[in-house]
């Protein structure tokens, strides 16, 4: 069993919602429970997938882990240390150096006024790593490691294609040799013929630099290719969590089944277009009682609207929160 690199304990992140004038006298403050009691662990060296549709809380979770947001309650433990609480700037800086990120928009994540070399070097500059010359060397090595040329080191982001820009973002994320890299939809904005390049690059870099990945996406097919374990989120909660193959072959939660059934398969001999689920995701301001999925669940039982199901381990390593599996 590998050492646990990241542990998220009962994480909650609520956002207060401004009251309109007519609501000023309402007793309760409205909150959006973007992340509601989320727990998981990521072992060193593995790729952990966080899957869900928009508004499920996966991006908010990754932002809390990165330290961009403070949790409303709960903890984030990195290598055993609590990195979510109110630390001195210096301490949090030290830990957050080891957690870096690559985001979805390749052009948007690069400062258009900086050359590629300066962009990749910047994390080293910020953290005062070594001297000018060694920083330059490290940056150049990183640029090559992601498949770009030394000639491109002096170019500007707008001179590069989307795939190349994303490579720059990856090189920059790896410049500090982090332990954990959070990848939030890293290939969603790229063309199909380029996605495979970047996915393979991520796989290779993981081996080369002994990285651990937290992969956030709505695209199940990419998750299947890259991730070792997957957690499915719905309206701020994790509804199912297990090894990748297990999730795709034996999904237990009705939402997971619906998701898998909804993905279009590039195989005309196996057409299965159908409506897996009716209705839309409920508003996070008006969460359903009991199990949040009960309003759309094909396996609805009376208890589902009354009691919130617990997140329990049904088989070894396979967790679900659903009343179908309560004894």
């Amino acid at each position: 069993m590998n050492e646990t690199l990241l542990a998220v304990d009962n994480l909650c992140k609520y956002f207060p919602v401004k009251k309109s004038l007519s609501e000023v006298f309402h007793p309760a403050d409205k909150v959006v429970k973007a992340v509601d009691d989320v727990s998981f662990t990521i072992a060193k060296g593995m790729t952990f997938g966080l899957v869900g549709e928009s508004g499920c809380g996966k991006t908010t979770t990754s932002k809390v882990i990165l330290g961009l947001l403070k949790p409303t309650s709960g903890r984030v433990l990195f290598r055993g240390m609590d990195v979510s609480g109110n630390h001195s700037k210096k301490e949090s800086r030290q830990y957050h150096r080891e957690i870096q990120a690559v985001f979805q928009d390749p052009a948007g994540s690069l400062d258009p006024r900086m050359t590629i070399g300066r962009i990749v070097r910047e994390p080293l500059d910020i953290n005062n790593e070594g001297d000018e010359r060694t920083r330059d060397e490290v940056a150049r090595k990183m640029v090559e490691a992601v498949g770009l040329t030394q000639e491109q080191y002096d170019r500007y982001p707008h001179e590069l294609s989307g795939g190349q820009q994303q490579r720059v973002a990856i090189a920059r994320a790896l410049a500090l040799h982090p332990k954990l890299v959070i990848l939030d939809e890293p290939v969603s904005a790229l063309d199909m013929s380029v996605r495979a390049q970047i996915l393979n690059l991520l796989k290779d870099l993981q081996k080369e630099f002994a990285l651990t990945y937290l992969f956030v996406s709505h695209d199940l097919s990419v998750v299947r290719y890259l991730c070792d374990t997957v957690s499915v989120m719905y309206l701020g909660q994790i509804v199912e969590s297990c090894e990748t193959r297990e999730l795709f072959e034996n999904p237990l939660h009705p939402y997971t089944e619906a998701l898998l059934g909804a993905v279009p398969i590039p195989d005309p001999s196996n057409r299965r277009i159908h409506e897996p689920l009716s209705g839309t995701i409920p508003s996070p301001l008006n969460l359903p009682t009991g199990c949040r999925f009960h309003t759309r669940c094909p396996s609805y039982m009376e208890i589902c609207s009354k009691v919130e199901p617990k997140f329990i381990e049904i088989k070894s390593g396979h967790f679900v929160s659903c009343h179908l599996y309560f004894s």
Partner: protein
Amino acid sequence: MLSVADLTVNFYLESGIVSAVNHVSFDVRKRSSFGIVGESGSGKTVTALAIMGLLPMPPGKVDSGTVLFKGEELLSKAPNDMRKIRGNRITMIYQDPMTSLNPVLRVGFQIAESLMVHEGLPYRDAKSKAIELMGLTGISAADKRAEDYPHQFSGGMRQRIMIAMALATKPDLLIADEPTTALDVITQAQILALLKRLQAEYGLTVILITHDLGIVAELCDDIMVMYAGHAMERATARELYSEPQNPYTRGLLESITRADKDIKRLNSIPGSIPDLIKPPKGCRFHTRCPMVFDKCKEDEPPDFEVAANRFSKCWLATAGRKTR
């Protein structure tokens, strides 16, 4: 229903000439669904706009080709005549329902509008038809919701409204340009299922434009794969996926991730999409093709007919020779 032959569209800009669509031909059979698959820069949307007569004509120009719709040539039609066809016999739905709907008009009115314009119906009749259409596209309590504004609907619902608008005049041809790209997976499945059902019910002919190989496999009878303005391959869905006859198609199929099977390692296509202002000489895919040889770099391949109604734009695809 629709026959496009040798369509070439160029944009004459200050920075150069963008060769957006280059000698593209295809036929869409009546009541079938035809998929146009391509990445960014492939020319798929420009093709659709050319058919609809919606190309911005000062920079854009159709430099060759014919578009025959039910036997009528569309490209040479006067704007007034084209207006009678657009939104009436040929309708289109777009990717982003937020910007395609007028935010200050009630949705019922927007749907009724095309009926009033094209069929001359009085408002009351048009409105009740609009409510009926909203119900058909799966919007519950349609009579109440027709009074709402676009921002009061979710993305999936807005797309249903767009579909209702597009079907109001019982068109012959519906063009759907990336209709589900902005939607979540489950909403996407709902909309695709809806489209499939409506197509059968109304006997529609549909052109579906997308970059998603999964969607065209699920929905389309015939498919055309475009790359950098070229029509690389045309085939039925089954033929395309089981035996692709073009290195680009094959490369693409081998490089996509699958939710239905485990893949050890993806085969990626090296390089990136070329600049359309200075596209590669000869076959535009030659800079990335694993099977490139000298002729590819010099001469643009024609559409070889490799089998009945099966075309591939590749020098390796002369009839009888497989591209492997």
